[in-house]
Structure formats: C-alpha cells, structure tokens
C-alpha cells in the first residue's frame, strides 16, 4: 500500500515539476527574451522595409491610374504608421554594444527619411505639393530600403 502511495507521489511530483518547468521554458523562448536587442532591431528592419515596399507599390498603382487617391493615401498612412511604431520601438531599445548602436543609428536615420518621404508623398497626392513628383519620391523610398540592406550589418 505504502509502496503504491510512494509511486503515486513520485508520479505527481514529476507532473508538477513538468507543469512548472514548461511555462518557464515557453516564456524564455519568446522572441524578445530569446533574441534580445539584435533580434528586435532585425524585426523592425524587416517591418520597415516591408512598409516601404507596400508604399512604393501603392504609389506605382496610383501613378498608373489603377488606384484612387483615397486608397493610396490610406495605404501611405498605414505604411507610415508602421514605420512610426517601429521607430518608437527602436528609439527606446537599450543597445548592448557598438554594433547594436550602429544598427540602431542606421535604422533610425532610414526610418526618419522614410517617414518624411511618405508624408511628402501624401501631400503630393492631396495636391498640396507639386514638387517632388511621385517618381522621384518612389526612387527615394527604394533607395532607403537599399541603403538599409547595404548598411545594416
């Protein structure tokens, strides 16, 4: 009887330990914990480039007359909001070393430039500005994503 009880106790302890360890393992493997600052910087870089490409495509479709000014502006606004959210994340990240600091600077510079270009494009779409023209802005946006690819190491 006591042997069976001891067995049961052992099994219960094993289950309790596994139940306690599992959440810890899972929580420590969440991206922010696992990848630290470099991982978060890389994530924001990808998001920023994706937003820039989406804005570029939106402008291309608008220029080709396939899109309305209204939806193009919504698409630019969404892209800008995504970059701004990333900017806030990156600006608040504590850099661990010189490499991270350099990546952070590169990202922030590129993001500032993108935000300015997207805001300018929005003004052009609204008719509030005539210069620079959309092809020029598209070129600048493409250039920023290329710079990010080249200089972010």
């Amino acid at each position, binding site marked *: 009887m006591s042997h069976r009880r001891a067995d049961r106790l052992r099994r219960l302890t094993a289950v309790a330990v596994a139940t306690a360890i*599992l959440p810890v393992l*899972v*929580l420590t*493997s*969440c*991206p*922010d914990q696992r990848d630290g600052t470099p991982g978060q910087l890389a*994530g924001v870089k*990808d*998001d920023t*480039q*994706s*937003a820039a*490409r*989406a804005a570029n*495509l*939106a402008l291309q*479709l608008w220029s080709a*007359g*396939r*899109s*309305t000014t*209204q*939806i193009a502006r*919504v*698409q630019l606004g*969404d892209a800008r909001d*995504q970059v701004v959210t990333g900017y806030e994340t990156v600006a608040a990240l504590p850099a661990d070393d010189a490499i991270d600091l350099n990546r952070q600077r590169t990202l922030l510079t590129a993001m500032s430039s993108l935000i300015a270009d997207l805001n300018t494009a929005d003004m052009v779409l609204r008719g509030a500005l005539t210069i620079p023209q959309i092809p020029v802005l598209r070129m600048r946006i493409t250039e920023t994503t290329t710079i990010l690819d080249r200089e972010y190491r």
Partner: protein
Amino acid sequence: MSKLFAVALGVLTAIGGFLDIGDLVTNAVVGSRFGMALAWVIPVGVLGICLFANMAGRVAAVSGRATFEIIRERLGPRMAAANLGASFFINLMTVTAELGGVALALRLATDAGPLMWVPVAAFAVWLVIWRVGFTVMENATGLLGLSLIVFVISVFLLQPDWTQLANQAMAPAIPESESGATYWYYAIALFGAAMTPYEVFFFSSGAVEEHWTVEDLGTSRLNVLVGFPLGGLLSLAIAACAATVLLPAQIEVTSLSEIALPVLAAGGKLALAFLIIGVVAATFGAALETTLSSGYTLAQFFGWAWGKFRRPMAAARFHVVMLVVLVACASALCTGVDPIAVTEYSVVFSAIALPLTYLPILIVANDPGYMGERVNGAVLNAAAMVYLVVILLAAAAAIPLMIVTGAGQ
C-alpha cells in the same frame, strides 16, 4: 421553382457569408509570408466546419431547439458554463474584430479615420438587429459578400505561374525567412479562422429562428456542403492573390489596405469598388452574426426568451445583452486598440476554445433522447472523432506557439 430559388439563395448566402475579418486578414498574411504553403489548412478547416455546422443544424431541425439549450440540459450547468465562458469570451473578441473590420473597410472608401466609423458601425449593427428580419439580414449581407469573388477574378487577371502556385500548395515548404514554429502558428490561426465557434452557434440558432424542421435538412445540408466549400475557395483566392503580388515584392500584410494591393494591380478601380463592398458586407454580416451569437449563447444558457422571431419586448434580456456587447466592444476599439491585432488574436483563441464548442455538439448529436433515429452514423462519428483529436492538438499547441513566435512575428 421557388424551392429551387430558396436553395440557390441559401447556397449563395453561405458562400458570401463564409468569410469574415479573421479569414480575410489571416489568409492574406499567410499568402504574403508563406505563399500557398499553408493552403492545405483551408480544406481541412472547411471540412471541419461543414461537419459540425451540419451536425448543429440537424440537432436544431430535429429537436427544434438550439444547441446551447440542449448542452445545458444534457451536460449540466458546469460543463455548459465552461462552454459558455470560452465561447462568450471568443465572441467578444470576434465582435470587436468585426466592428473594427467594418470601420477599416469604410476607411478605404472615405477620408474619415477608423475611430470615426466604429460608433457608426456599432449603431448600424444594433439597428439592423433591432429592426430587420432574420432572413432579409442574412441574405442581404451574404449576397453582397459575394462581391469578394473579386479575389477569384483577380487571381486570373494577375496571370500567376499556376505551376508554381500548385507546387507551393501540393509540396508545402517553409520559406527560409520563416521558422517552423511560425508556420504551425499560422496553420492553427487559419484553422481557427475557418472553424470559429460563433459560426456553429449562429447556424444552430438561425435554424430555430427560421423554424427549420426535418424537411429542411436537405436544404441545410446543401447550404453547408456546397456553400461553405465554395466560401473556402474565396479564402484560397485571397491567399493566392497575396502569394502572387505581395510575396515576390517582400511585402508582409499588416493592414487591411495592403490586402487591396493585389486587387488594384489586377483590376484597378472597378475591382476596388467590389472589394470595398465585399469587405464591408462580410465584416458587417459577421458583426451581426457574432453579436447575435452573444445574445443566443447567454440567453440559451440562462433559459431567457430569445430570437429575432420574437418582438424585442418579448425577448428584452436577449436584446439588452447584445446592446451591452456592442457598446463594450465599440468602447474597446475606441481606446485605439489595433483591430487587425485583435483579429489575429481572436482566431488563435478560437482554436483554443474549439474543443469546448465542438465536443458538446458531438455528444448531443449522438443522444437518441433528442435526436431519435437521426443520431450520427458511424462514419460521421469517426470523422468527428478525428477532428476532435486535431482540434485538441491545435488547442494545446496554440498558446505555446503564440509565445514562442511572439504572435507570429
């Protein structure tokens, strides 16, 4: 002839009403990140919802009562309360996501920001629930939702490399930029989006609203077995559009406006008009269904009078619940919470709640006390058991995968 028309209308409504904001967003996100590598999940999910929706419709038609009423009576208040808690919570998230979806869709067509549209959308949902008849409400939103066929047309207009798309779908491979955990996280999200619990509660309660009897079983089966799979085709088309335009351009979908990019590339402004009508109708229809489902589940659990076939005065508590749910969800959106994020979480939490929703339906559908001779057959039970295992696995893996992948980042 009129019978044939009713069947066709039901099928068309089921196709148009199949998609909601969860399907729209998840399919587009998946297409833009994995191509068609997760296409296999859509038929799996569609088959599952067909199986259980048909079962719930049969229970309602044979017994004349909605699933939740029977669950409480058959399984007792504790089991029913667990079911209610999970379903109601998921429902709240889904109502919030759908209202946000309506607002985001209207924003595509106007200058006003989504926050301006949220109260309007909530008021419109309440007004339709209060004033419009059940059948008219269902058919109008379902038929307008058919505009989403624009995604299917867009796929053809985009002239994709069909061989490549087929290869991605038939021999799924995880892209280098994605991890295995993210792949499975989105598989569960797609599965949850296809099998959202509210669909079954709504289908079952809708059967009672429309006074189905055993004679309507054939129509119900056609609606489900033809309408839902064709609705699933729309899901595949959304993923294919994203896989054709957004994946090669390395654009990951994070907003509703990005879902419009492939449609604009394919069909220009005309296609955009159909897209906006379709998205508004789909999300508005789903907002109606989820809001009604909130009222249905709570009223059926507590034994209150419910249903749109009754005058609001005769089902006051049912209507108050829906009003409170709408106000609460609209208020949550007005805090500035991102509707797309709510949508992404709601489909994953749906997957977690699935066992609590579908196990009771299976038990009731096998009870001769309610079903008489029309209990499930052996084949149907075997299929349902296989699905329950899949549902349990998905539910168990959902939260760990959500944490490990940072909600699919």
